[in-house]
């Protein structure tokens, strides 16, 4: 056996691709009933964990886009994508490279806001380019969009003030550039 003929074991392990990073998969699917159930079902059946999931239409009414994130340290990413590819309604899968991708998440935070800390919350909101979308005597609702990390950071700033409720959409993502 000539070693040069074959992939090295390290490459093979890389090929199996437990990466350390979180992956954003952008999946184009046929816009048909049940497609989301097939994708979600595949994940649970194969023991893969979905971190976040967002589904919406694309410019083509026959095609929807599913954006899902998962932890590449836990799941071999090539196995996940190959299994997804086997679904007949899945047209295209893209494992989004972080550098070449614009990814955004939307979050709403309801934070308790008494008179004494209200100004500080508004100030944080300005720094994070968030918007106050509801004001009541005891609480504010703040809307923020941005990367996963930014929203994480914003949440940690608000939390000491008393986070009453929060909701996050999961990431949506597009590749940069003109393709």
């Amino acid at each position, binding site marked *: *056996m*000539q070693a040069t*003929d*074959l*992939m090295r*074991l390290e490459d*093979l*392990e890389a*090929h*199996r691709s437990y990466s350390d990073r979180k992956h954003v998969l952008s999946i184009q*699917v*046929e816009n048909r*009933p*049940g497609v989301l*159930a*097939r994708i979600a*079902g*595949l994940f649970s*059946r194969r023991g893969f964990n979905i971190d976040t999931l967002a589904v919406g239409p694309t410019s083509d009414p026959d095609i929807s886009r599913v954006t899902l994130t998962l932890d590449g340290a836990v799941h071999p990413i*090539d*196995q996940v994508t*190959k*299994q997804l*590819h*086997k*679904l*007949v*309604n*899945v*047209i295209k899968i893209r494992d989004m490279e972080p550098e070449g991708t614009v990814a955004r998440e939307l979050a709403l935070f309801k934070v308790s806001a008494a008179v004494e800390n209200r100004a500080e919350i508004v100030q944080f909101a300005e720094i994070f380019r968030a918007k106050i979308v509801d004001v009541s005597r005891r609480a504010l609702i703040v809307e923020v969009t941005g990367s996963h990390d930014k929203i994480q950071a914003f949440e940690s700033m608000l939390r000491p003030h008393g986070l009453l409720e929060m909701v996050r959409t999961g990431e949506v993502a597009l590749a940069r550039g003109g393709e």
Partner: protein
Amino acid sequence: MRAADALFKSLEAEGVEHIFGIPGGANLPTYDALVDANLRHVQARHEQAAGHAAEGYAHASGRVGVAFGTSGPGATNLVTAIADAMMDSVPTVFVTGQVRTDLIGTDGFQEADVVGITMPIVKHSFLVTEPQQIPEYVHDAFHIASTGRPGPVLIDVPQDLARQEIEYSPPTEPIELPGYKPSVEGNLKQIRLAAKAMANSRRPVIYSGGGVILAEASSELRELCAGDNFPVTSTLMGLGAFPANSPQWLGMLGMHGTRAANYAMDEADLIIAIGARFDDRITGKLSEFAPNAKFIHIDVDPAEISKNIPAHIPIVGDAKAILPKLTREYRAIQTDSERLDGWWGRIHAWQKGYPLTYEPGQDGEVKPQFMIETLHKVTGGDAIVSSDVGQHQMWAAQYYGFNEPRRWINSGGLGTMGFGLPAALGAKVARPNEEVVCVTGDGSLIMNVQELATAVTEEIPVKVFLVNNGYMGMVRQWQELFWEGRYSGVDNGSSPDWVKLAEAFGASGLRCEDSADLEEMMRATLDHDGPALLDVRVSPRENCYPMIPAGNAARDMVG
């Protein structure tokens, strides 16, 4: 015409000649249309059996098997067969009735969300929402079921839609499935790499699986091996793709494979896996599987490649397309023809030292292995053999010796007891001129024994050879070997009188309790002009060896 009539027109357009099924409320329109349809319906007695019969039909013929069931319980009864077809990649189409569209979601009578229930166990499925979808869905379903890695496709047809009038015209446009484009041809660069690795190997083994049979690539496999004397081993699903009587064949590998096959895998420097998926029954302990080998993996399903074992040379595509190219590339390389002599010396030593063998029975005791050998003798070794699941399955796999593909039909992936008899029915319907025998056990047969009624009523003359040891034999073997002999739930106790049972169904029944009578009784059973059962009382405590205990390495074989 009614959509239900269009359903049959569509099936006929796909070349369907036989279907297996049972009617019920929700598929009454379909069964009404069946009266005028131009195909044979085999009425099973349980939908699970209808599904297995469709599988047996597909296994024996290579064509798509079709099974029908009604909504709710009819559909859920099909689930085991659907899962079985998924695990063994059997090209099948299942058509279920569904309750009326206005009842869907209301917990209507005999309603079950069969599309939802079966989602993890189908290759694809269709819920008909407009009656005019039916011809297109049938067309797509047959394409999906039979191409790429084959598998089961489900079409769920609500009762009211089946009754509506539609314009039927046969689908003429090419199939447009944007997400479904199986790779077939294989990358030539990778094929060249594989040929080179084969030419450079000193201890190669070809590990051929069920995919070779599914791809109809048996002659291409033989051609590849003819160029050089590569040793070949086959999986349970791959038996017959390479002739068992070839000196190059090492026997089956895996949990109950031969020592020669398993030790050869263990010491190989190159393993050429073709249409095989490195199932845990093959690999045993993954980390100690073939520790010295590089792997060439040829498979039409890219998700199988590097799923369990990382492949050094992955080749995605159909074995039938790839093997001739591989043969050509390999032959173009000047190889040292004696380079495998040492390797064969080692293999021959294993073959000589550890042949498949058993203690002969004393005082007329029928050893199950002897029973299979006798079956081989009386059938000339070329019957289509369906089996159930358990010890008898492994003995049949070890001792029958299959020289041709599509002559060995069993449930490998799901391991479904109750598979054997209905699968035999399907095989006999597909190939009525072949001798079709079912090798089964007393634990398995009773799980779908009602299909003797189908055999008699539909005049399908299958022959059932019952390896009767009074136990759930394989489970008893495991409890004996790995659970300190604490037997639990394995004694079949007062099984029925199988001869009377066969006769009650209208079949012929015989019992054999002495090995001296076996051959003659087997011949009488085969010669009977109709379905027949031979109840053979075999040694009750015989175990199936050799064996790699689950989770162990090949070198730790016992028995």
